[in-house]
Every structure is written in structure tokens, then in C-alpha cells.
């Protein structure tokens, strides 16, 4: 067998997986810290793509600046949503929190998608390339956009890792995810951390959406695929395990690429889902479930 037959899908899969990992990171973070199964995550991805599109085309900002604008925009939106919705719910009642917030995120998702549709129509808005050109990796050519996208994902994930483990605020976020009461008792302002976390998660999703703009043009319903892909990743590695989401993302990327090449483009979802369901059958708490971390198991 030609080694490039193995190497090519792996390279393609890794490039794809980097952004899955980034998306999954945001999802895992919000679930881990706030216990919110966020089904509007994909819509912040969509918002990011739109913001980047308008910054890039209408305002002529450079690619990097456009992506940064998208991140900030989504961060602010995330903060508003958290303050307006989840904070309100938390004040009212924490009973049945996971289910209630799940429904709230569904509502948010519907509202976001349709508001965007109402504002900008169902058109696809894309750019041909942020950074034109291609590069040879192994035996295949890859566009610079993809490589930069992958690098952005890796840098963002690394940055997050440093932030979470080395800074006071990052540690507080982790502390909240492990024990809310405990973190309040040492003086962590829970509301602030929650808002920050949700905003960050949205910013990360938007970052992914913005960096992929040249590959997936912006449209109102574009968020669904990244949403369920990031859910695959999170459940695959074990819910709330923020660190492992990178491995899950890359794994899913490669898995899908192989499925795609073996069975054709339409089958990738069915195949990767079947594999994930199988894995979960034998390891219901995920591949990298940690002891003491919230798990999917009852």
C-alpha cells in the first residue's frame, strides 16, 4: 500500500480536526463550569462567521483583524446572553438545571438563527480566501487558509491551556467547575466567572467560524454541523474533560476522512456516528474519562 494513502487522509483529517477540537473546547468548558449543555454553540460559530465576513468585506479589515472582531463580537453577545438568560434562571431556581438550560439554549439557537436569517437573508456569504495560495504537505497541496486555520486552533487551544492552568482567573474557572460552593468560599465571584466562561466559549466558537469562513461560507443554518460534531467530540472523550477535547477533535477529523475516502462523501456522518456509538457502548463515560470529573454515567 502506498504510504501516502494513509498519510494524506491523516493530514487532511488533522487539519479538519483542529477546528473540531476548538469547537469542542468551548462546549466542554461551558458544560464543565456551568453545567449547561449548550445547543446554541453552533450558532455562535455562525455569528462569528458573519462578523468576520462583514468585517472583511464591508469594512475591509484584514483577515486577522476580522477574526479578532468576530471573537470580540461573539464574546459580547455571549456575555449578554448569559446575563439575560442563564443568570436569570440561576436566580430563580437551580432545580433541574441541566434540562432547563438545555431548553434555554435551544430557544437561543432558534432565535439567533432566525434573527440572522431575517437580517441578512438565507444567502451564502463567503470569501474566496483570507490568505490566497497553497502549500505542499507530504504529497498533497493544502490551502494556506486551512493551515492558518489549523494553527489558529492549535494556538487558541494552547493559549487556553496556559490560561486555565497558570492564571488566577483560569484556575478559578476550573475551581468553579469542580466545586461551586468551595470556590465561593475562597472568594471566587461565581456570577462573574460564569459570565466570563460563557463569553469565552462563545468567542472560541466564533473564532472557529471566522477562521473557516473561506471554506464554509456564512449562512444562518451553518451551525448545526459543527454543533453536533463538537458534541460527538465531547461525549467521545468524556464530558467536561476540557483537555482531552483536542485529542477527540483530531480523532474525529481522521475518522471522518477515512470514512469519506472509503465509503464516499455522504457516509462520513453515519460511519463516524456508528463508531462513536460503538465506543460509547463499551466505554460509556468516554475515552478519556477522568476520575472525579463529572461524567455521563448515572
Amino acid at each position, binding site marked *: 500500500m502506498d504510504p501516502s494513502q494513509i498519510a494524506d487522509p491523516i493530514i487532511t483529517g488533522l487539519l479538519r480536526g483542529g477546528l473540531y477540537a476548538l469547537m469542542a473546547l468551548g462546549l466542554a468548558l461551558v458544560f464543565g463550569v456551568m453545567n449547561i449543555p449548550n445547543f446554541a454553540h453552533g450558532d455562535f460559530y455562525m455569528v462569528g462567521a458573519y462578523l468576520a465576513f462583514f468585517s472583511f468585506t464591508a469594512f475591509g479589515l484584514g483577515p486577522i483583524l476580522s477574526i479578532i472582531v468576530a471573537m470580540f463580537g461573539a464574546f459580547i453577545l455571549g456575555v449578554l446572553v448569559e446575563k439575560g438568560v442563564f443568570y436569570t434562571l440561576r436566580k430563580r431556581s437551580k432545580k433541574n438545571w441541566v434540562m432547563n438550560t438545555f431548553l434555554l439554549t435551544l430557544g437561543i439557537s432558534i432565535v439567533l438563527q432566525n434573527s440572522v436569517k431575517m437580517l441578512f437573508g438565507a444567502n451564502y456569504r463567503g470569501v474566496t480566501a483570507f490568505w490566497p495560495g497553497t502549500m505542499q504537505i507530504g504529497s498533497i497541496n493544502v490551502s494556506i487558509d486551512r493551515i492558518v486555520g489549523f494553527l489558529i486552533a492549535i494556538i487558541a487551544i494552547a493559549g487556553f491551556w496556559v490560561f486555565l492552568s497558570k492564571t488566577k482567573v483560569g484556575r478559578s474557572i476550573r475551581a468553579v467547575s469542580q466545586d461551586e*460552593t468551595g470556590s465561593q468560599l475562597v472568594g471566587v465571584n461565581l456570577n462573574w466567572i460564569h459570565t466570563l466562561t460563557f463569553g469565552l466559549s462563545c468567542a472560541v466558537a466564533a473564532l472557529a467560524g471566522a477562521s473557516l469562513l473561506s471554506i464554509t461560507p456564512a449562512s444562518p443554518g451553518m451551525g448545526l454541523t459543527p454543533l453536533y460534531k463538537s458534541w460527538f467530540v465531547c461525549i467521545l472523550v468524556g464530558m467536561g474533560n476540557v483537555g482531552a477535547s483536542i485529542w477527540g477533535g483530531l480523532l474525529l477529523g481522521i475518522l471522518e476522512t477515512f470514512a469519506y475516502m472509503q465509503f464516499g462523501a455522504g457516509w462520513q456522518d453515519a460511519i463516524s456516528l456508528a463508531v462513536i456509538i460503538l465506543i460509547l457502548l463499551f466505554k460509556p463515560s468516554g475515552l478519556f474519562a477522568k476520575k472525579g470529573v463529572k461524567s455521563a454515567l448515572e
Partner: protein
Amino acid sequence: MLEVNNIDAGYGNMQILWDVSFSVEQGEVVAIVGPNGVGKTTSLRCIAGIVMPWKGNVEFLGSDITGRQTYEIAKMGLAYVTEETNLFTGMTVMENLQMGGLTISGKNEFNNTLDIVFSMFPRLAERRKQYAATMSGGERQMLAIARALMLNPKLLILDEPSMGLSPQNVEIVFDSILNLKSQNVTVLIVEQNVNYTLEISDRGYVLENGKIVMEGKGKDLLSNDHIKNMYLGIA
């Protein structure tokens, strides 16, 4: 320094505390004793801002803290070691202590506090890289107290520190409380281990059925007949 004035509190429709009042003065060790499920923990939660009292108020360092958020009260210098310890189990000992010292701004100050805490609990110093989840019950209790001390608290509240510990570990914990007392830390302690507790306390309150039924000096209470009957099993 801490005054609890006539509080009523409870969960949902169920009232737990009825007109409870007590106080803690600077430098004292004060104990609240009583049987299970009479509202000891609830009263501590009212102080720490986890539970909002229905009626009455709590004053700490001369200001009314009723209804304030837990983290604000913590920042004022009130450290609360809960029964469940509420440790960050996915973090190392060191990280737990770093979280405890969250409110300390300077690096030097932090290191000084850390040194003091490590000198009190040398065992933790040896295990600073260990994850809290993998520690034994006694070590966790120690870590919880240590984390609370990282706050440089003006008042330390301990809820059942000896709960579920082996006699050996209980001794270690009580030794450290005595140690704190010698360093002039104000302590409010809730315990079922009445004998030990009242022994080391300056004053004590007895809480029964959500009401304060008795108060007095630790030693006095120990010699009280009712206490002997109810808690010490001495006829």
C-alpha cells in the same frame, strides 16, 4: 466580631432555625454542639451567605452581612470549612492552596502565608503535587483547613472537622485547631464530638431542634448534667 441575631431559616417550606442568636468575640474558640439535624450546619450556612435567613441578621466585623454573596463575605476574612470540605478534587494540593490564597494580591505575601500553612501541616508540603481526589479523608480535612487558612481569615468556621475520620486523624485535626488557637485565630466550630470540642473551646452553645437551648463557658457546659446525659453518655 461575629454576631448572629434572631435568625429564622430553612429550606423550601420547612423551617429549620427558630430565633437563633449567638456571637463570637475576637480570639475566641466558640463551639456549637447538638444532635444531628438540628440546624447547626444551616446556621453556619446563614453566616457564610449560602443560605439566606428568613428573618434576623448577621453582623461580621461590625457590618451587616445578611444577604451578601458568599464570595464577598469570604473576602472580608471569613473562612468556612464545610462538612463536605468542598475541595477542588481535580486539582493538586498546591493548586487548592493557590485557590485558597486567591484574595492575596502580592507574591511575597502569598509565599509567606504558604510557608505558615505548610509549617502547620508539613504533610501537605510533601504532597503538593498530589491530586486532592487521591487523598485520604484525614488529609483532605487537613487540606481543607489549610486552604481556608490561606485566606488569612479573621474568623475560621469549621463544620464537623472530625467527621468520618479515624481516631488518629481526629487527633491530628484537633491538634491543629489547638495550634490555631495558640496563634490567636478566632474559630467557630460545630462538632458532634462534644467532649473534645468543649474541652478546647472558650465558650459553647447547645442547639436543639433549631433553637439555642443553652450557652456558657466550655468547661461549664462539660460539667452540665443535661450535656452529660445527652451527649456524653454519662449518667
